[in-house]
């Protein structure tokens, strides 16, 4: 089962044969640890550099069971490595150091280390590291069960034909879940085909679920949150405290990362950020299954949503099983759906024709948003309009004729729109800001263009910059352009079921998909969660072209797929990005 030539994980003789990767810049310790681990009958690989370790891990997905790393390393901080591994590969990581200061240990735990060993390390301490691997497996199985529970629940709600695809997808999901579960239950390693993401199934944090989570966090107050409190508030059956804890941890990391590094300067959003931790993950995502943040998408330009072409583009890489597994998370009948993708009349994605330069055609599609209602859902089951609160951020956008000022990808979009009330499309309705997107949003870290399709809400803001749209009618807000993009994103977020359908869907005509990519970075400012989902008010009456609305670039959808199931843990970072409210 080793595609990479690695021996398969021990099966019956567990924990013997446990595949350990040791990372330490000290050659003496590396030698000692190697010997110790070998004596424990583990399979050892040593690395003197953190970068090498990451490369190894990425190259051989599923080739290791656990990572042991020193805290202090010259080329990369051990904690950073820890984060990467946790998010990308979701492997248990043990930290070690000669420094046993409480603060350091605490930091390690906060960053997700499953253990912290003090040097000099005794062999008996290493003998038991298998427990961490075992524990994770157990949790995964549990998570899968939860996922199945959620899935079936959702499926029940989506009953129409429209959802056929969704069902199909869901069904597939479940199948893969079950498959996974079976395999997992054997405590076997993850060599499930090439879909490494399935191996690491965790709780699928659907849009809905995540919304609840964020709501709970907001209620409690970011500084005071704790897994137990959140769990209680969320009131989701089957969800465990551990699920929440790990989700919270990742959420925190995501937030802090966003706060630190906002360098989404490339057109395609995430993909090219080599510096940000996300980029690493993103890159790796690209290679994974569903998350597709391929540089190729960049070609699609900023306007990721160039309609079908894009979609295809995005879809392709993903077209492997991962794609199909978009879970339909949004309940069909959500009266508050802010985004309406003109269900009954799927407009052709004008957006596809929209290129960067295209005037705010996309925004017009927003008009369709007016129909934020179940029609959308029917049409686009995948459209779960998340509840996006976009606050008006900056000055009104000024629409240009060409999207010359459309948010360039890589621009952070601070979109804070308050989608409180279902807002009809621009033309007829108030800005999206008022809309409330109730559907759970499935954020799919996806598509390249959307990098993370997460709304990027940065304190500095401004998504608005992205699309200077002149919102005449829209008094409020926010960056229309971003709004539109947001909307698109929002739409995406919701419906990630059928790429095809999404393609035709709501095309928020957000030309600057690119912006979306980055723009859709959900930037969670602690205490202030906004989903920058291009769902900002799309109030460009003059620019609205309803027909555009219907076509939502697939990538949009994909971007917001908050569904780990089909993605590798790496996905997580994307998900993080696309986290919204």
């Amino acid at each position: 089962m080793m595609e990479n030539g690695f021996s398969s994980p021990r099966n019956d003789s567990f924990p013997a044969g446990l595949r350990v990767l040791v990372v330490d810049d000290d050659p003496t310790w590396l030698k000692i640890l190697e010997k110790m681990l070998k004596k424990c009958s583990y399979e050892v690989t040593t690395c003197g550099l953190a970068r090498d370790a990451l490369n190894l891990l990425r190259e051989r997905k599923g080739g290791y069971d656990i990572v042991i790393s020193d805290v202090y390393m010259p080329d990369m901080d051990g904690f950073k490595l820890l984060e990467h591994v946790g998010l990308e590969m979701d492997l248990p990581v043990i930290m070690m150091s000669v420094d046993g200061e409480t603060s350091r240990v605490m930091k390690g735990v906060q960053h997700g280390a499953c253990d912290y060993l003090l040097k000099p390390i005794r062999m008996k301490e290493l003998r038991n590291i298998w427990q961490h691997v075992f524990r994770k497996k157990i949790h995964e199985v549990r998570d899968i069960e939860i996922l199945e529970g959620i899935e079936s629940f959702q499926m029940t709600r989506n009953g129409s034909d429209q959802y056929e695809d969704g069902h199909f997808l869901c069904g597939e999901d479940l199948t893969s879940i079950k498959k996974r579960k079976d395999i997992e239950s054997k405590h076997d390693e993850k060599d499930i085909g090439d879909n490494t993401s399935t191996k690491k199934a965790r709780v699928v944090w659907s849009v809905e679920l995540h919304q609840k989570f964020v709501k709970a966090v907001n209620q409690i107050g970011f500084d005071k949150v704790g897994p137990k409190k959140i769990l209680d508030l969320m009131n989701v059956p089957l969800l465990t405290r551990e699920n929440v804890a790990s989700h919270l941890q990742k959420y925190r990391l995501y937030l802090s990362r966003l706060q630190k590094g906002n360098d989404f300067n490339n057109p395609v959003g995430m993909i090219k950020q080599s510096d940000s931790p996300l980029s690493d993950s993103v890159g790796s995502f690209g290679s994974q299954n569903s998350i597709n943040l391929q540089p190729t998408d960049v070609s699609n330009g900023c306007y990721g949503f160039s309609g079908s072409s894009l979609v295809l583009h995005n879809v392709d890489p993903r077209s492997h099983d991962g794609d199909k597994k978009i879970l339909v998370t949004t309940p069909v009948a959500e009266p508050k759906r802010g985004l309406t993708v003109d269900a009954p009349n799927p407009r052709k994605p004008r957006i596809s024709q929209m290129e960067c330069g295209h005037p705010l055609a996309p925004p017009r599609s927003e008009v369709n948003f007016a129909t934020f209602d179940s029609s959308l859902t029917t049409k686009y089951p995948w459209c779960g309009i998340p509840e996006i609160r976009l606050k008006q951020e900056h000055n009104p956008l000024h629409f240009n004729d060409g999207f010359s000022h459309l948010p360039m990808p890589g621009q952070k979009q601070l979109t804070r729109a308050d989608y409180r009330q279902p807002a009809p499309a621009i033309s007829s309705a108030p800005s999206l800001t008022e809309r409330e997107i109730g559907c759970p949003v499935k954020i799919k870290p996806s598509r390249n263009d959307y990098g993370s399709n997460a709304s990027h809400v940065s304190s500095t803001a401004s998504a608005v910059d992205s699309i200077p749209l002149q919102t005449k009618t829209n008094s409020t807000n926010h960056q229309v352009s971003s709004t539109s993009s947001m909307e698109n994103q929002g739409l995406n977020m919701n419906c990630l079921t059928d790429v095809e359908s999404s393609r035709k869907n709501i095309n928020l005509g957000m030309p600057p998909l690119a912006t979306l990519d980055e723009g859709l970075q959900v930037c969670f400012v602690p205490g202030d969660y906004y989903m920058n989902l291009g769902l900002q008010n799309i109030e460009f009456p003059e620019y609205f072209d309803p027909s555009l609305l219907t076509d939502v670039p697939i990538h949009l959808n994909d971007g917001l797929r908050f569904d780990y199931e089909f993605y590798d843990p790496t996905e997580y970072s994307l998900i993080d990005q696309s986290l919204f409210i």
Partner: protein
Amino acid sequence: MEMRNESTYSAPLLGWLKGGDVTAAWRDIGEGSIGDCRKSSFMRRGYLDDQFIQLEHLQDEANPNFVEEVVRLFYSDSVRLIQNIELAMINKPNVDFGKLDAYMHQFKGSSSSIGAMKVMKECSKFREYCYAGNIEGCIKTFQLLKQEHATLRRKLETYFQLVKQAGVVAESA
């Protein structure tokens, strides 16, 4: 054997001196390698800690010279570490204590691998001086550290020789 200096007695002999079984003690002294004496001497005098014993436990047929290899690796690597520290201390008025501390942290970690207790103690002292921004203290401590480092090296070299000799003797016996 310097009868007066207890620290040079081997463990078995000491045990006997404290009232243990004479025969056993003599046997141990007679058959035990002088290396053992040295080792316990090291331990008692604080040169090496339990980590060293751990290393010996790791030694097996697959790696018959494991301990010696590790020690040599440590010493060769410490050249680089020592250099880093010295370079960082050179720019006297503008010493980057943070960097210095980081290097020393590395060195301490490395020293812990073979259980070099005295060396580690000096490392800790050094770091305290770093924290206090006391470059003179750092320099002085570093000198002591290097001395301990070198002393231990000599002792260990001798130790390994003795062990080898004992091995040869044992085999020929």
